[in-house]
């Protein structure tokens, strides 16, 4: 089957899902900023917390974006294997920290960036190993 070959079209779909995925996480984070984080210690306070967060328009915008990602992701998974698709859809590991710095004013230490690049290196290695196997199969 063709389920391991990453074509340019599939690659574009994966990039699209990266950008939307980053947007989802940004919107979700925004929705939790509107309420004071407080102590979510038991089920009751958890439900109160969720009620506040679900009242935020950011959360619903995020959920709409999740639906878009879901449709895109469904198309991608029907074309390639899960273990190939997931690693390539990972440029959001760079996008999310950048968005965090620019729009959320979070600080990222050198050690944390190093961790991010280790994760990314792992992701690239996983992707390359799948490419090798596709070429061998030809």
């Amino acid at each position, binding site marked *: 089957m063709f389920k391991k070959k990453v074509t340019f*079209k599939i690659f574009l779909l994966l990039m699209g899902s990266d950008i939307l995925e980053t947007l989802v*996480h*940004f919107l*979700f*984070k925004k*929705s*939790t900023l509107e*309420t004071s*984080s*407080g102590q*979510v210690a038991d089920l009751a306070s*958890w439900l109160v*917390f*969720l009620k506040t*967060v679900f009242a935020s328009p950011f*959360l619903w915008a995020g959920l709409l974006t999740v639906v878009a990602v879901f*449709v895109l*992701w*469904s*198309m991608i*998974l*029907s*074309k390639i*294997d*899960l*273990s190939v698709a*997931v*690693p390539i859809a*990972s440029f*959001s*590991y760079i996008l*999310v*920290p950048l968005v*965090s*710095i620019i729009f*959320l004013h*979070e600080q*990222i*230490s050198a*050690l*944390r960036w*190093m*961790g*991010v*690049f*280790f*994760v*990314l*290196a*792992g*992701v*690239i*290695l*996983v*992707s*390359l*190993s*799948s490419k*090798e*196997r596709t070429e061998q199969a030809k």
Partner: protein
Amino acid sequence: MKQDLLLVLSLIAFTSLCDTINQLFLKSTIDSLQFTPKLNIKKIFKFVFQLITKPRIWLGLSFSLISLSVWLVVLSKTDLNFAFSADSMHYIFIALASQFVLKEKMSAGRWLGTGLIVVGIVFVSLS
């Protein structure tokens, strides 16, 4: 502080596990459809309609909902960039699930890559 980190990491592990279960249901449902979509609005809608009529999708989505509820707590407790990087522990679950549940072939290089991701998560957590 250390206890907080441990709590947040366990919560993230829990959401990763739920997400992996959701992905497995999604993958098995899509494989059962044997559909090759083209970029065509009509076909996409037909595909989505076929998907949402499968009970397995809703089972997967309920895991997703649990994951979201816990994830929001994580986000309220910590920075987005930390939460997101640490969430890459779902790679470990996905790799294990791909190998043992979906029976996909995992090469040595792919396992090494997954190992690097683990190292990355450790660095991110230490900072």
